C-alpha cells in the first residue's frame, strides 16, 4: 500500500513529447512505473519513449484506449490549467501537475473543476509523488534517494525534500510515499489532506512534514495532527527561519506578509501539537526514532 500512486497506477503523461515530459517519463519508466499513455495534441497516433507508449490527441481518447487512472502534467504554464481540467473531466483520479509559474487565478478555476470531479490534484509547481515500495514514480523526484519503508513524507519543496529523504535513506529509514505538494499559494492538495491519506494508509507508520514560510498550511496540519495523529511518530522541518518579511523566497507561496506565515509561528504550532521540529534536515531520522518510530 501507499498513497496516491502505487501498483494500481496506470499513468498518463500530458506533454509526453516535450523535453521535460520525455526526460522524466523515461526515468519513471526505468523506475518501474506503468506508463500507459501520453497526450500531445496533434501527435495522436504516434508512439513515444522508443515506441513503448502510445500518444493520443486528447485525454478522453487516452483514457478510453488505455484505462489510465493517473496523470502527470509537464505542459507549459499557459496550457497547464486546461490540461488539469481536461484530465479531471476525463475521469482521471490522481492528477500531478509539475508545471511551475501558473498564474494563481487560473489555478483557482482548475482546482475547483478537479474538486467538482472528485479528482485529487497534486501541485502545481511540485516534484510529484513516489511510492518506492510499489516502484511508482510520478514526477521528477530522483529515484536514487528512495528506500521502501514505512515513513510518509510530505513537503512544499523540491530539493529540500530530496535532502530530507536522502538523510532518511542514509539512516536506513524507508518511505511509503513521498509527496511534494508544491510551493505555490494555490495548490490542489494541502498538508492536511495528505496527512489524512497517510492516516488512512496501513503501510504508513510514521510521517515527516517539511514546510516553509508563508500561509498557514503547517498550522492547519498541526491542528489536524493534534487531533488525529497523536499515536503516529512524526517529525518536521520548517525552512525560512532567517527569511526576511515581505519578500518571496523563490516559491510564489513562500512569503511572510503582514507578520503572518513566519517559521516561528509554524514551529510553535507543530511543537504545540507534540511534533518535534528539526534544526536541520539531517536531524529528521533521529527525531523520528525519538518520537517512537521503529521501522
Amino acid at each position, binding site marked *: 500500500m501507499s498513497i496516491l500512486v502505487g501498483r494500481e497506477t496506470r499513468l498518463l503523461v500530458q506533454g509526453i513529447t516535450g523535453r521535460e515530459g520525455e526526460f522524466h517519463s523515461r526515468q519513471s519508466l526505468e523506475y518501474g512505473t506503468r506508463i500507459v499513455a501520453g497526450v500531445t495534441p496533434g501527435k495522436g497516433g504516434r508512439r513515444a519513449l522508443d515506441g513503448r507508449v502510445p500518444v493520443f490527441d486528447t485525454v478522453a481518447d487516452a483514457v478510453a484506449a488505455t484505462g489510465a487512472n493517473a496523470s502527470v502534467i509537464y505542459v507549459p*504554464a*499557459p496550457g497547464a490549467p486546461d490540461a488539469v481540467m481536461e484530465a479531471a473531466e476525463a475521469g482521471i483520479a490522481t492528477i500531478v501537475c509539475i508545471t*511551475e*509559474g*501558473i*498564474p*494563481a*487565478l*487560473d489555478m*483557482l*478555476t482548475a*482546482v*475547483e473543476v478537479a474538486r467538482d470531479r472528485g479528482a485529487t490534484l497534486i501541485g502545481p509547481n511540485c*516534484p510529484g509523488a513516489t511510492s518506492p515500495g510499489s516502484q511508482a514514480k510520478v514526477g*521528477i*523526484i*530522483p529515484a536514487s*534517494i528512495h528506500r521502501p519503508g514505512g515513513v510518509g513524507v510530505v*513537503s*512544499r*519543496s*523540491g*530539493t*529540500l525534500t*530530496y*535532502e530530507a529523504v*536522502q538523510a532518511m535513506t542514509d539512516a536506513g529509514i524507508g518511505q511509503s510515499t513521498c509527496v511534494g505538494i508544491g*510551493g*505555490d*499559494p*494555490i495548490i490542489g492538495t*494541502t498538508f492536511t489532506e495528505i496527512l489524512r491519506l497517510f492516516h488512512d494508509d496501513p503501510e504508513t507508520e510514521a510521517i515527516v512534514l*517539511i514546510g*516553509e*514560510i508563508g*500561509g*498557514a*498550511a503547517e498550522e*492547519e496540519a498541526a491542528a489536524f495532527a493534534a487531533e488525529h495523529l497523536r499515536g503516529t511518530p512524526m517529525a518536521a*522541518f520548517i*525552512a*525560512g527561519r*532567517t*527569511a*526576511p518579511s515581505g*519578500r*518571496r*523566497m*523563490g*516559491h*510564489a*507561496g*513562500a512569503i511572510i506578509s*503582514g507578520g*503572518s506565515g513566519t*517559521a516561528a509561528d509554524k514551529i510553535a504550532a507543530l511543537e504545540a501539537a507534540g511534533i518535534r521540529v528539526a*534544526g*536541520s*534536515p*539531517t536531524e529528521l531520522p533521529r527525531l523520528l526514532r525519538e518520537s517512537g518510530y521503529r521501522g
Partner: protein
Amino acid sequence: MKIQEADAKSLLLAHGLPVPPWELARSPAEVRAAAERFFAAGAARVVVKAQVLVGGRGKAGGVKLAGSADEAEAVGAAILGMEIKGITVRKVLVAEAAEIVREYYLGAILDRASRRIVVMASAEGGVEIEEVARTNPGAIHRLATHPFLGLQPWQARQLAYAVGLGGHVRDFVRIAGGLVATMRDRDADLVEVNPLAVVRGAPGPAGQATDQLVCLDAKITLDDSALSRHPDLEAMRDLDEEDPVDVEARSLGINYIHLDGSIGCMVNGAGLAMTTMDLVKRAGGEPANFLDIGGGAKAERVAAAMRLILADPKVQAILVNIFGGITRGDEVAHGLIEARSRQSREVPMVVRIVGTNAEEAARLLREARFETAASLDEAAATAVAIAAGGAMGGAA
C-alpha cells in the same frame, strides 16, 4: 510585484471605481504647481504622500497636509529625498485633502486555505488590517467568492450591511465588484482600499457637495506568475526602488534576494536555499543572500549567479549547495570552475554537490582544488568558520 499607490489608483479608476483625482510630482516645484491646480479648483487643503512600496510611510512622516502652495512646496521638499525603511522617496502624490466622515477597510485577497478570492471589509478603516485582525478580529467581515462567478451583488450587499454601509449600498456593491474585477482582470494577489471613506464635499457630477464613498488609498500586489500576459503592468515595476542586483538577477532567471550578512549562498531550489541560509545562521554566521539557481541550471547560469554574489562587497565566503535532480552536478562544477577563473576578487568557497552526477562533480572540483563538504551541516559550519577568518581547511 507591488505597485505604487498612484498606479494602483489608475487600475481602480480603469474599472470605474470612484478615486479622487491626483497628480504625481518629482520635485518641490512640481508639488507646488500641482497644489496650485487643486487650490484653484476649490480645494481647502492638499495632501502630499510619499510614493514608496514599503509600509508605514505615515508614521515615518511621508504623508503631510498643506493649506497653501508655499506650504505644499515646503512639505514636498521635506518628503522628497526622505528615506523610509531604506528607500529614498523620489515621487509624491498630490491630491485634494478630503473631508473624511468615516473610514472603512475593503480588500480582496487570494485565500490559500479556501482557494477562493476572499473579500474583507471592516468599519475600522484607515489602520493596517493586520492590526485590526490582532486587536479586534470580530470587526473584519469576510466572504469567499465563487471561483467561477466572482463576487455576486447579493454577497456585496451582505458585506455592506455587515459593516454599516447600508446607506451607500449601491456604491459599495459597485466598488467591491470593481475590486474583484480588478483582481481577476489584472491577476492581482491583493487589491486593497484603505481607507474606503465616506467623504463630505467631494464634488459630485453636478458640483454638489454630498456624502460620497471614495477610494482614498489603494494597494495592489500583482501575481508575478501572470505578469508575462500583462505587459502594461510589468511596465509599472518601480526600478527606482529595486536593488540593481535584483533586477539583473531577474533578467538572468535567477531568484536572488539581497540580505545583510557575509556568507554568500548559491543553492538549487527555493526550500533548500532557505534551509541553507537557516543553517548558516545556526552555525553562527549571517547569510548575505537568498539565491536559487532554479532547476536544470547550466554552467553559464552558475557563473552568472557567482557574479551576482561577488558583486556584494560584504561577502566573505561563499557556500554552494546543490542537490542534483534535474540539475546535473557536473554542470554546476563546470560553472563554478569557469566563474572562479574569471572572478575579480578572491573569496573562499565551500562546495557541496550531491545527487545527479555528483561523482563527476566531485572529480572536477577535486582537480580544481575546491574546498568541498559532504553534508549540508558541515558545509555551513565550514563557510561560517572561513568567513570568521578561520582556517581555509587543509586542502587549500
